[in-house]
Every structure is written in structure tokens, then in C-alpha cells.
């Protein structure tokens, strides 16, 4: 098993140019504007002090490439600038927000798997049947709903109507956090499900028709054991890459959902920063999120390789 993971260093090296590209885009975001970027970023109502502070942060009086390398150098030192609103290092704000967003993402991913796997199996078992159509209706609706609206509807039904969940906020203890994260995670999961179900359903149909499932049946396997042993893992392989690609979507969605449920994560941080025109904070969140997506891409490859012995990313490099 381990020898097949030897591709990881190579894969890491491969993603270095992409990571640099990401920093380049984040860097140039601020320079897309004409005139003094600091003034443009902060808006007309900005005080001269904050303009001066941001100009200094951005190093605006040096050549552009020097500014970029300065920016890169600061990133490597773990310095993402100072939040204009909070007058705190962006990294320490990130450190507070990241656990919230990551817990939300983790829980949402868990929920979407818990919902998707049985539904996909139900649909794949008899394609075109009544259950398949029901599942398809669910995926169509799930795809057609704006995430934030679904969140509001769940608040209306489960928090306001049934009083089963809090309307928003994050609570104070770990148990509280889980309780407060339930609805937002469910919201994200429902909108994430359609993509997973669609992918799982079609790969399950393929697997169920495959000869090796026939072999498993000829060994006397049936029902849940057959599903667990010979269908799920094989069908999961293509879905892993679908999920990997869509985690980026989940991250984007979580930003909006945090706003709906007043969760103190990256999304709230970013959206508040937009209204206070706190550019270093926006830049910090954007950079973190994009690098996170790059890392997720690598993790996806690792999981994929562990699930499918036929793949050998390492072999490509060696040949």
C-alpha cells in the first residue's frame, strides 16, 4: 500500500506552480484598479490614516515585482498583513475562523455522504423505477435551490417552527458547536448531494452490471454484504474525484451559509470585511481558501490511489 503513495512528493512539486499562480492572482487583485490601489480599495470615505496604513502594507512606492516578492516573502513568514477593521494580524483572525469553517465543511461532507449513499443505491438498484424517479426529483430540487434560501427555509421549519435547532450562532462548548453546526451543515449537504448522487448512481449502475458482481453473487453474496463488499467501494472510486472537485464548491457555499446562520467562520469574516472594505482580510481569506482547494486536490489523489490499486500516479513520473 505504502509504495503506491510514493507519488505524493511528485504531486506536491506539481502543485507548486499552481500555488504560485494563486498567490499571483491574489496579489494582482489589489492592483486591478486604476490610481492609488490603497485609496481605491478603501473607498472614497476612507480616512487618510487608513489609506496611509494600507499603502505601507502594500509597499506601493516600490516596483511591482518587488512588491510581489515582498508579498510572497511575507506569506512565507506567515504574515498576511493587519486587518484594518480589527487592527489585528489577519493570521490570528484566520486562526479563529478556520476551525469553524473546517468543522462546518467536515460535518457537511459527512451529512452529504450519509444522505447520498443510500439514495444513490436506491436509485441505481432499479434505474427508471419509481424510486429512481423520486431520487431524481430530489436531486433536481436540490440543484435548483439557492443555498442561502434553503438555509432560511430550514431555519423557518426546524428552528422557528419546531424550535429543534438554534436560529444561528456558534455556541460556547464543543457539544454546542455541533448543535449549532447541524442546520448549516445540513443545508450545505442537501445542495451538495445532487452532484454526488448523480455520480454515485451512474457508477453503481455500471458496477451492478459488471461481471465481478456476478462472480460475487456466484460466491453466494447478496444484499448488504454484496453492496458493501463489491459495489460501494468500486462505485466510490469515480465519486471520490467528483467530491474532491466539489469541495471547492462546498467551501464557496459555506461562506454564504455562514452568513445565513451567523457562524463566525471564514465566510462571515470575508463578507464583513467587504462591507468594511478591509482589504488585507479579504486577501488573506481568499489566499487561504484557494490554497486549501489546491491541497484538497492532492488529498483527492491520495484517497483515489488508496481506493483503486490500478492507479499509479508515480509510474507516470518514472517512465
Amino acid at each position: 500500500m505504502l509504495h503506491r503513495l510514493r507519488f505524493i512528493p511528485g504531486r506536491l512539486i506539481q502543485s507548486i506552480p499552481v500555488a504560485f499562480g494563486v498567490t499571483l492572482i491574489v496579489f494582482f487583485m489589489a492592483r486591478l484598479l486604476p490610481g492609488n490601489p490603497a485609496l481605491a480599495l478603501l473607498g472614497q470615505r476612507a480616512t487618510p490614516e487608513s489609506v496611509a496604513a494600507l499603502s505601507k502594507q502594500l509597499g506601493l512606492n516600490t516596483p511591482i515585482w518587488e512588491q510581489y516578492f515582498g508579498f510572497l516573502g511575507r506569506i512565507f513568514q506567515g504574515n498576511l498583513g493587519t486587518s484594518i477593521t480589527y487592527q489585528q494580524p489577519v493570521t490570528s483572525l484566520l486562526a479563529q475562523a478556520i476551525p469553524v469553517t473546517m468543522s462546518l465543511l467536515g460535518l457537511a461532507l459527512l451529512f452529504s455522504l450519509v444522505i447520498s449513499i443510500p439514495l444513490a443505491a436506491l436509485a441505481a438498484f432499479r434505474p427508471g423505477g419509481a424510486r429512481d424517479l423520486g431520487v431524481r426529483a430530489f436531486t433536481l430540487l436540490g440543484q435548483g435551490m439557492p443555498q442561502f434560501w434553503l438555509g432560511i427555509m430550514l431555519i423557518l421549519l426546524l428552528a422557528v417552527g419546531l424550535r429543534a435547532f438554534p436560529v444561528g450562532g456558534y455556541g460556547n462548548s464543543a457539544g454546542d458547536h455541533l448543535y449549532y453546526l447541524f442546520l448549516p451543515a445540513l443545508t450545505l449537504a442537501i445542495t451538495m448531494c445532487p452532484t454526488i448522487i448523480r455520480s454515485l448512481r451512474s457508477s453503481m449502475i455500471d458496477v451492478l452490471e459488471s461481471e465481478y458482481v456476478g462472480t460475487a453473487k456466484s460466491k453466494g453474496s447478496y444484499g448488504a454484504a454484496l453492496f458493501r463488499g463489491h459495489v460501494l467501494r468500486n462505485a466510490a472510486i469515480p465519486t471520490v474525484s467528483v467530491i474532491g472537485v466539489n469541495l471547492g464548491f462546498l467551501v464557496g457555499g459555506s461562506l454564504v451559509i455562514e452568513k445565513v446562520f451567523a457562524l463566525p467562520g471564514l465566510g462571515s469574516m470575508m463578507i464583513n470585511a467587504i462591507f468594511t472594505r478591509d482589504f488585507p482580510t479579504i486577501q488573506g481569506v481568499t489566499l487561504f481558501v484557494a490554497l486549501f482547494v489546491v491541497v484538497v486536490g492532492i488529498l483527492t489523489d491520495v484517497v483515489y490511489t488508496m481506493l483503486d490499486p490500478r492507479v499509479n500516479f508515480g509510474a507516470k513520473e518514472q517512465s
Partner: protein
Amino acid sequence: METPLLSVKSLTIGIRRSKSADTIIVDDLSFDIQRGERFGIVGESGSGKSLTLRAIADLLPKGVEVLSGSIRYNGAELIGMPTVQRRRLMGPEIAMIFQEPMTALNPVIRVGDQIAEGPRRYLGLSKKAAMALAIEMMAKTGIPDPARRARAYPHELSGGLRQRIMIAMALSCGPKLLLCDEPTTALDVTVQHQVLKVLEKLCDDSGAALAFVTHDLAVVNQTCTDLAVMYAGHIIESGKVKSVFHDPRHPYTKGLLDSAPDFDQPERDLVPIPGFPPNLAARTSGCPFAPRCVFAVEACTVAMPPTMEVAPGHNAACIESQHIFEGVTV
């Protein structure tokens, strides 16, 4: 008389249609397999031989079903038996070997674990003991270094080794009946021979009966004691291999033998059968072989000829059989 191990009666397989007549692929098929017998089913692709085998194993493809008839295993009716009960027979009673070992083995599970799956379920073995049995079975099929190979994934093995894995898997629970669906077709000729030898030997050792589907007459000659020749969903001739090979009584069987190379008479010319197998949708009421048959008479196109015993234990479904092969004129 002892109940046969497997008894197929009037088995009809096809696709059920709601708006038009059902498409029939295997029509009113009957045969018995006795304990320890080696029964070959020969036919061209599309003759329904593989579907017959799959019907016995409850592995018919989606949409295709048993329309009528009976399959009895050891006296117990399989058609209509609940899936759970039927699957319990698969492994310790009936096992199957498929044509293409690459697609028949699960690509993401180590072959040792795939072999051990059945023994763990049926023989109640621990993980370790089941793996030991798997390795033992692999050794019996002649796989060198089985302990190491057991940790391999299917794609890491050659075709011949994969088919040996299939054999080890099928025989791991000691089945009484082994269904083989063209088990050597996907292999190189030299490997084919070795794999057949292994299969024969292991069946001899365990006393398992064999139902062997193939299009290759030479393979039947080597492996089987009895055979049935299928054409367009019908058994048109059956009997002891020797009897049928030396004295074919159906023009199609004769044609098959004439069109296959014979190593005993290498100088003999190969004679192809003219025409093509019939389209399933355009089935006529008469003998399905009639359009290609040089001996066909008008009566052939009217009704399917009845199966007649042409020699002891040797049956053929041809009304002209006696005229053609014995020179008898009425």
C-alpha cells in the same frame, strides 16, 4: 433411478414484452446432469448456451428472464426459489467460472481475499484460516508462490493466473456442480490447455460435476463425457461425446464437425456452414436450421422437429436424420 444432480425441463428464457410477443432466446430446453458427469454445451455465439448456464446460476442479465420451465438442483426447484435461499446454494453447491477473468475478478480486492470470501461465509473459517485455505487452493491450481500471489490485485496477474484464481475461487467451498462459461476462450492456446488440465484434475479430485459451455469442439472432446449441441435456443443433438462426434445425426452437428480442424485427419478440407444463424426476432415455426440446411424439405419449415432417440442415449431433432445418415428411403 437416482435423481439427477441437475435437471432442466422445458426451460424457456427470453425478454418479456408488454405490448408484443415475448422475444424467446432459449426455447423449451431439457437436459439432465448426473453427479460427477462432465456435460458440454456447444454452440455458436447467440445460440443461448451461456444464458442457459446463467439461468442456472441466477445471473441472467437485466431484462432477460426465465419465462417458463423448471430447473431442479438435487430435486429442489430453483425457479421461484427466494433469492436468499438460492444464493446460499451458490458456493457450497453450485459454483461458476466466467469467460473473462479480468472482468470477473473485482479489480480493487486482493485475489486471496476474493478466494477467501466464500470459505469465510460457508465454512465459518476465521480470516486467517480462510486465507490459508485460499493459498492452498491456489497451490492446487498450480499457481507458483501462492502466498505472495494471494496479495496481488487482479491486474497484476497474467490471464492464465487469473483464470486459475477463478478456478480456485469456484472450488474453494467444494461445490457439487461447476458451471463453466467458456473458461478458456480468453486465453492463449498453450495456456488454455494447462488451465483445462487443472480444471479436469480438480474436478476429478473433488467429484464435482461440470457443465461446460463452449464453442470449441476440441475442448469438449478433451474435457467432457456428454454433450448437447445448441442452435438458436434449441438443443438439436445430445448424447455421449464419443457417439455424437463419431456419428453425428443432425446436419448442423455434422456441419460443425466438418468446419472445425481435426488433428487426426489434418489433410481433410474444412467445410464451412453456409449462411448465418437466424435473427431472434424473426423466428419461424419450423426447424431454425432449415434455411441453412442442404437437406431441408418442406416439412422442416412447418414445425420444430421432435427429438428422437437415434441410438441408445443419443438424441437428435431432425426429421430427415435417418435419410441423411443411414441412407434409408421411405
